[in-house]
């Protein structure tokens, strides 16, 4: 009996701890002093997450025409510096094993991307560019991913290792271990603090994303209009960079930022928060660091009987379909989902000894109103949590692989 009592007390404290976990900030989140009202300095980017030089570089890269085939954005690169990979060339690429350590498939963006990657692998295997593909999923756990990478190295079966790191600093030594094993290493999406890999593949980046969204709001809204920022969660670099860029741009504008809210991308939370802001006054614009739940935010305006805001969502189809139906003033910033194709293609190129860019910066163009119908048309059979710029239309298994997920 006493034991069960202790168990219950333990469960009760566990309850509290876990309640906290579900909404708590991950490590490395900025100090609470950021506040979330304008009076608390919401328009000064947090120094930890803002790098002026990188910001300027990304803003400039948006305007640069990438090199590469025009209709294959996943093969394009912005200002590439090609490096020789002949030391990694092997005689029988059709038997080569490519290993992929994935951070997770814990959100629809990653799910969409991973499907595209698997279909790309099928195409490469058919062409005899690679032989076998193995993947491991770390479920957002750094330790798991470190041991996944170690296992690939220890097995000795991998002819190339692709890594999509779950976090930057923690995964750096694991990536270096993989490099030391002598096989070519390809890192994509989030980066690591090392340049030992053969190529690092990523779209332009978070600053460009946040700036695309913020610039649009500044252009479309009258000076003095109010903007509400909806963020997923703090402490994740790609998301923090988006917000830092927006803070920079809003700070130089005449717009009034009402504040920012963390939503975890949960529709119910978004709808509730937006409703509460609407009770207190007008909201003319919505800036989001990712489009998850954008539709729920718009419904809060519908239910409150207020006109739709000018909104920056993402190329997620539920949002884009709403955009078309309601003829919103909107933009869909894009964190290029087609980047999931590039690493496996790069692996094939490296194993064939072909040159690849040392830093392979993929284009990252937002979808604007004039392209909306085209992208909706192309993705008409796709589920609503699919990303319009997934770039897999020419791959085997299209469209079933993406529709029957």
């Amino acid at each position, binding site marked *: 009996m006493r034991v069960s009592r202790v*168990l219950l007390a333990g469960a009760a404290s566990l309850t509290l701890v876990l309640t906290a976990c579900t909404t708590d900030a991950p490590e490395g989140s900025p100090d609470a002093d950021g506040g979330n009202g304008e009076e608390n300095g919401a328009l000064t980017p947090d120094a930890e997450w803002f790098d002026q030089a990188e910001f300027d570089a990304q803003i400039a890269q948006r305007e640069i025409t990438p090199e590469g085939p025009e209709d294959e954005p996943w093969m394009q690169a912005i200002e590439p510096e090609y490096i020789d990979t002949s030391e990694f060339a092997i005689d029988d690429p059709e038997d080569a094993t490519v290993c992929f350590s994935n951070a997770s498939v814990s959100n629809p963006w990653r799910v969409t991307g991973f499907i595209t990657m698997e279909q790309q692998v099928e195409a490469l295997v058919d062409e005899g560019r690679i032989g076998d593909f193995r993947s491991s999923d770390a479920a957002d756990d750094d330790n798991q991913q470190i041991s996944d990478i170690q296992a690939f190295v220890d097995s000795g079966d991998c002819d190339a290792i692709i890594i999509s790191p779950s976090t930057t600093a923690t995964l750096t030594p694991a990536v270096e271990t993989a490099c030391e094993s002598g096989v070519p290493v390809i890192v994509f999406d989030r980066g690591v603090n090392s340049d030992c890999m053969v190529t690092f593949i990523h779209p332009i980046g978070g600053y460009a994303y946040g700036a695309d969204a913020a610039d649009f709001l500044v252009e479309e809204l009258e000076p003095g209009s109010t903007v509400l920022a909806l963020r997923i969660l703090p402490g994740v670099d790609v998301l923090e960079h988006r917000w830092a860029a927006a803070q920079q741009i809003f700070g130089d504008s005449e717009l009034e930022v009402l504040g920012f809210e963390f939503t975890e991308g949960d*529709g119910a939370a978004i*709808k509730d928060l937006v409703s509460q802001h609407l009770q207190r006054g007008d909201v003319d614009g919505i800036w989001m660091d990712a489009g998850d739940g954008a539709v729920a935010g718009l419904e809060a305006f519908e239910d409150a009987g207020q006109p739709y805001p000018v909104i920056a969502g993402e190329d997620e189809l539920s949002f884009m379909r709403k955009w078309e139906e309601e003829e919103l003033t909107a933009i869909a910033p894009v964190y290029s989902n087609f980047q999931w194709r590039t690493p496996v293609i790069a692996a094939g190129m490296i194993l064939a000894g072909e040159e690849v860019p040392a830093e392979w910066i993929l284009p990252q163009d937002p979808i604007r109103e004039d392209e909306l119908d085209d992208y909706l048309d192309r993705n008409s059979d796709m589920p609503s949590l699919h990303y319009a710029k997934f770039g897999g239309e020419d791959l085997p298994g299209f469209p079933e692989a993406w529709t029957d997920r």
Partner: protein
Amino acid sequence: MTVETRPSGGRSGELLSLLRSGTGTVTVLLVLIFVVIATQNPSFFEGPPLMAFAKKAAPLVILAIGQYLVIVSGEFDLSVGSLVGAQVVIAARLIDGEEAMTFPVIGLMLLFGLLVGLVNGLVTTLLKVPSIITTLGTMLILFGAVRYWTGGAPTGALSEGFRVFGRHGLEGVPVLGQLPWALVIAVIAAVGAILLMRSPFGRSLMATGDNDTAAAFSGVRVWRVRTLAFVGSSLMATVAAVLIGGFAGVTAQVGQGLEFTAITAVVLGGVVLGGGRGTVVAAVLGALTVEALFTLFNQLYLPSTIQPTAQGLIIIAAVAYASRRGDLRLPERLRRRPAHPTEQPLDSSRR
């Protein structure tokens, strides 16, 4: 018999016990939070904002009622958050925007809820797996199964007919503007639960939570009563899923962490973990308090990163305050134990 821990001395007696129990504390807390909200946002108590609050709070109230049934019988149900998520995803996939599918799918969801509740209940009572393990297992199974089934990204869409319950209401009501269906459903669920707890079944449930050995000796079929409590919880989670899905549509994150919010609400209402004490009203007030707290944090522009900390502190403070006043006395069976050493061996067979 220990059923008497809950005074049943007529209407005035119940009213008195209501104020004396944890219900008193949570009521004070709720009023306090509402007062602070009112100072921040005086228009909060005009009809429409209040109804918006009710619409948002209704699913948690319903979940808390379900959780109450299980907790009062001496068990836990950790599976409700995953169940809500699973139900919304299943609904979206099966309805896929077809109006005609709305009610068949809601029927199917209720059947699925019934099944999950039965499994939770029977595994806990007949296989003697502690409920915290059983429902933790169910939670993971449902979470994983939905992930597997959908590949991480829910597909399909809910019909407008489905969304009516969580999103719309009776329009044109004087003062209130709109009377949300969600509020109506939550009130029906609360009244139903209050009546249920006054029925013989409710008394058996309470007795089971207080001391299942004694309850068994006095003729309560403990396994059946507890299983039904789990079924009740899962059905309530299904109703909550209809409301939550209706409120905000389908996202991949729907339902995450709700089980802990629901347990928090019930605990805050002064329903003792371990069973045998507490009222439905307290659980409902607990749920409203948690939602009001979220609203308050938002009104105060409290950084969202610090909100869970504030939430935790307030909960601990409230429960500590209540127990210091003696509101949350230890359940009868614990205080009595030294006088009945022979109860020990019998009791250890529990669960």
